[in-house]
């Protein structure tokens, strides 16, 4: 089963930031896809059911300039 994890992402200011965050999310084990929005400051992460949503917040990409907050988790 796949679930959609919505993150609020802080610190993004340009398209490079979006790419950086997306790359960081896609590098995480179990993550299938990620839609990152600069306008909304969000990321929709499609991931295996085994992925613990909280673990995404502590990915390397969120340890510096960018920060993430867990908004919601929905089963697809």
């Amino acid at each position: 089963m796949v679930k959609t994890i919505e993150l609020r992402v802080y610190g993004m200011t340009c398209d490079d930031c979006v790419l950086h965050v997306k790359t960081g999310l896609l590098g995480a084990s179990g993550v299938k896809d990620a839609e990152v929005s600069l306008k909304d400051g969000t990321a929709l992460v499609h991931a295996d059911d085994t992925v613990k949503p909280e673990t995404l917040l502590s990915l390397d990409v969120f340890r510096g300039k960018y920060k993430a907050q867990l908004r919601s988790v929905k089963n697809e």
Partner: protein
Amino acid sequence: MNEYDLAIIGWGAAGFAAAIKASELTNNEMKIALIGHGNLGGTCVNVGCVPSKYLIEASKVYKNLKNPLYAGISGDGSLNFQEFMESLRNFVSDERTIKYENVIKNFKNVDLINGSAYFKNNNTVYVNDTEIRATNFIIATGSRPLIPDIMGLNNNYYTSDNIWTIKDLPEKIAILGSGEVAIELAYAFSSFGSEVHIFNRSNRILKNFDDDITSELIKSLKENHINFHLGSKIFKINDSGSGETSIQTEDGIYKGFSHILVATGRIPNIDSLNLDKAGIMYKNGIIVDNHLKTTNDIVYAAGDCVDQPIKLETLAGKQGVTAVNNILGGNESINLHEVPWAVFCEPNVASIGYTEKELRDKNIKYRTRIIGLKNVVKANILKNNSGLAKIIADDENKILGIHVLAPNAAEFIIEGVYIIKNKLTYNDLINSMHIFPTVSESIKICGQSFIRDVSKMSCCMD
């Protein structure tokens, strides 16, 4: 319905620290509701640490003017208490303006919402009939004075919330309780010249400290003309109708009090939050895990409203910051044994780490050394040498606790914080040079007492 990334309930030390940290970490992008009522800043700046320390420091100055410590020096020592209290209230107002009201204006992402919040469900609160939904919540509602159930104790007493409104110096004040607030205010009023009586049900003071510290402190406080009625159960408070109050205990009746101050502890402000609606468990405060998360996954709690043994402004601020870090992916916790603690009477009591009682309860082996302050030259210069320093260490010389009764101890206990936090030994302490002459040397000399007879030691010896 208003929606926020973070709603913080309570705008005291914990709430403010959380709001500012969350703003810093998110470049002020996080939309925050900071909900509260009463003066900004909560207990500490308005009715806690700030006015009490102002009162204490002024009382010391007055006492020393009336009773000069050094030969050949004398002073007038007159007191206009009304004028002094007005200056205290102005100082509090200024500090609140500078440290809270002006500070929060820098954060446009933070909405101040005046009102009481209570939960509608697991992710929504009501404030003034408006619904506020948030991704995360931090409850930081603080605590208030506990009023014991005593016959006749009814609108005829002060607490640390309103003692700051008095205009005249209490002629004779009864203080119920023997914790930090009771001891500090007893010291201040007795130094100003009030007749002070402390009544307490148990026969101890400052229950978090070991007996050797508190028994020495009681001696000092008695020399400051404080009367102790410990192990004394109060049956009844009687108002004479002429402005005087009497206290009936099992030992007899004590008459003629102009003021009663209740300082018997504090209770968390959680009654009106409707915590059950949000699935948040509580007992003697809100129950949290090591990361300050409540039993509701999106709700954290920080400060005095948490079910924990320590109620302290510095801890509240640290917990507010820690909660925010954890909401943003952190994995932080706070070791309560690394939290320093001080009582600002004279001499100060300051403490870090384990007490002997805690170690005995945990069945941990330890060794203790105590030195009297007469071994500390600066304490002798200050003519304030009735205290002591105590260090507790384990079998491998690692320091487990430092407890000091000394002038300025609250200022230098930070040395102990670094020692405990970094798991240092008394050899590390001895090998660290201290300034001579300072009262902080008391900690080093106490460390040296593990390896030698300090009475056979000259000044500045390593």
